[in-house]
């Protein structure tokens, strides 16, 4: 995590808590700090408090406890319209009774800009999202993707330094979503805007962000760049939530050097694992292995590596990949992904095989 005392931080949540009803904390002790120009994504299941955080930052909710700092000064007492934060909503929130041009003109008018300046800025903002020809349309005459483009350019037209987006692509189909993901990241980087992006889609989070904050139950479970998040999840929630993951449960039997440990699985088998979240012998642990890191070819394993017996339950052909479902250590939801290469064998259900992995790829996490 970045240093909270870092004065470079542009946005900072300092021990923020939030409760709507005085009974349940929706946000529990949130500490988060992001430097200027960063693209940070809040990722988490529905109800984990992401929107609440965004609303506190935008000024539509007040923090029950703690402080939010923008560019070094607390914003708790600044009304929303003076914060100068651009926002993009999932439902676009384009004003239905105004044309596209009027929508974009609105933030400039309330800032008292002259007509000529406004027109210039509107044109630039629309060209930025390739929507220059749609200036006289009404929102209802646009498709979802076009509406979100307009909403994006409206949030950027008054040149805010911070932009918040709450699941902006949630209502769009896959292809449009991917296209807009790319455009949003490009714009954010080109313009040097600090962005806080909320999503529950982990692919989106991984592909777009500089850093991802994984939320669960009002807490940040892990805050890290995408690659680190995927390859080095710090706890079993993150491991489970990001990407596909195989979990085996057992008890720690030995702590070794090099941050390794030995785990006895519930059916008696013994494996080596990277001790991430376990500290002493006898502790229960969930062990996480990514499906693409499982090795079914014995020759490729390190000498002395533990192997496990497995039975093929199902083989799924996915084009570029093969997905093989196995029964391992008494559980039959163990998935292995292999590349569709000429030498890769296609396993028949019922085949008995040995599988293994590098101890570094196998992470012993909290139970």
């Amino acid at each position: 995590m970045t240093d909270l005392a870092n004065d470079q931080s542009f946005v900072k949540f300092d021990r923020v808590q939030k409760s709507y009803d005085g009974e349940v904390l929706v946000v529990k002790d949130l500490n988060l700090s992001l430097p200027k120009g960063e693209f940070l994504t809040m990722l988490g299941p529905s109800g984990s408090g992401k929107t609440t955080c965004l609303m506190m930052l935008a000024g539509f909710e007040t923090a029950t406890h703690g402080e939010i700092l923008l560019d070094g000064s607390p914003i708790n007492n600044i009304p929303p319209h003076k914060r100068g934060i651009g926002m993009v909503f999932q439902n676009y929130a384009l004003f239905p009774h105004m044309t596209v041009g009027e929508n974009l003109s609105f933030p400039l008018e309330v800032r008292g800009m002259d007509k000529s300046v406004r027109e210039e800025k509107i044109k630039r903002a629309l060209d930025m999202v390739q929507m220059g020809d749609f200036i006289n349309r009404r929102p209802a005459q646009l498709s979802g993707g076009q509406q979100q483009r307009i909403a994006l350019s409206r949030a950027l037209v008054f040149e805010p330094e911070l932009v918040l987006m709450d699941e902006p692509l949630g209502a769009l189909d896959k292809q449009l979503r991917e296209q807009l993901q790319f455009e949003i990241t490009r714009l954010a980087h080109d313009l040097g805007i600090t962005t806080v992006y909320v999503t529950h889609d982990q692919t989106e989070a991984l592909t777009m962000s500089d850093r991802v904050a994984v939320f669960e139950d009002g807490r940040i479970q892990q805050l890290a760049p995408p690659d680190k998040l995927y390859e080095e999840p710090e706890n079993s929630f993150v491991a489970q939530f990001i990407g596909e993951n195989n979990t085996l449960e057992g008890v720690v039997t030995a702590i070794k050097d090099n941050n390794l440990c030995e785990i006895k699985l519930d059916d008696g088998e013994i494996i080596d694992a990277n001790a991430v979240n376990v500290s002493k012998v006898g502790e229960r642990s969930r062990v996480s292995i990514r499906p693409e890191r499982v090795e079914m070819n014995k020759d490729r394993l390190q000498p002395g590596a533990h192997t496990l017996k497995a039975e093929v339950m199902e083989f799924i052909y996915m084009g570029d990949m093969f997905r093989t479902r196995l029964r391992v250590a008494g559980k039959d939801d163990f998935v292995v992904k292999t590349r569709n290469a000429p030498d890769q064998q296609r396993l028949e259900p019922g085949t008995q095989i040995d599988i293994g992995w590098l101890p570094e790829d196998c992470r012993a996490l909290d139970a």
Partner: protein
Amino acid sequence: MSETSASDEILTTADGKPLKEALAKAQFFAKRRAFILVLPLLAFILLTFVMPIGQMLHRSVKNEGFTVHTDVTTGVRTPIMTELSIWFDQNPSGTVPDEAAYTALRNDIGALDELRSAGSAGTRINYLRAGSRSLFTKAARKWDKMEAPYQDAFYDLDDEWADATLWAAMRQASSSYTFDFYLAAMDYTRDGDGSVTKVNENRQVYIKLFVRTLFLSLLITFMTFILAYPIAHLLATLPLRHSNILMILVLLPFWTSLLVRTTSWMVLLQSQGVVNDAMVGVGILADESRLQMMYNQTGTVIAMTHILLPFMVLPLYSVMRPINPSYVRAARSLGATSWTAFRRIYFPQTVPGIGAGALLVFILAVGYYITPALVGGADGQLISNLIAFHMQKSLNWSLAAALASLLLGGILLLYWLYDRLVGIDNLKLG
């Protein structure tokens, strides 16, 4: 357009039939079924709405009180005042009645007496000239004792038989169809020589009442709007569990009888009522300066505002409920103060509801009868109370119909204006 020959070609189906024909055929059964389904309602509306309104319009220009006698039991129609109407045809309006005219009058009154309808014929003249009915009933008692010259005989009976306005009234009434009721409904009358003039200042009631009705209805509409807007907003934004309770409170007036509500306002607002008693008790008011809030315009406005409030709340609520809070949030984040966000983003989106509510409340208020009748006193009466008076008391149905037709016309005019200015498709009732 003329060059595009392709669009002029008739599209056909696979077997060569014109597409339009095939489509009409395919849809025929569906259309017929739809028609049969709406038929009962159509018949009902025709019978209970279109026909009565047609009747009313007809009655406002037709009155046979001085032209035809209809026997109530047998339904036999006998023309009356036939000789006099011939004399009117032969002599232009303004002619001083001669002996021939009085002879015709005497014979016609004789015929009236035999039909026992002198009273009703006199009433018809009474509409146009007050105090005329008794002339006819008196003459009907004496006609067989009259001797020529009849002019003098009538003068002996009553001087008023020489009055030019009486003859002008009879001339008007001698044709069944007339626009005179519309003139009367707008405070105009006809002189002895047939020209249209305003009635006496102290008898001008209708225009004053139309204006008052218009003014009070606008005031009530405005009051309901002012009161309903915040309530509707609250209803639309509160969590469902709270808003349901509030909604029940708003709808409560719908579930209690109109009469009960009106009388409870009387209990509250009259000079010895709860509100006045409370204010005197607390010492805000002196006992002798109790507020007059009942049996005047104030009473009408208060009670009708309350009664019509739900009709404003519901359309407003129905447009406010689906307005996503993110619109206002977006406006705020874009730099608008909460007032600007309300004025430029929220309010314009509620205009269709305001239009619907205002039109509904206004039209209901313009035709309201029972509440002003009970709490309006003398100066809180509306035009509908006068219509009711002419239907029930003075029995001048034609005048009642003319007043009602004017009211209907006024409302249609407003509706047309609304359509021109706001657009009727912008109306949203729910």
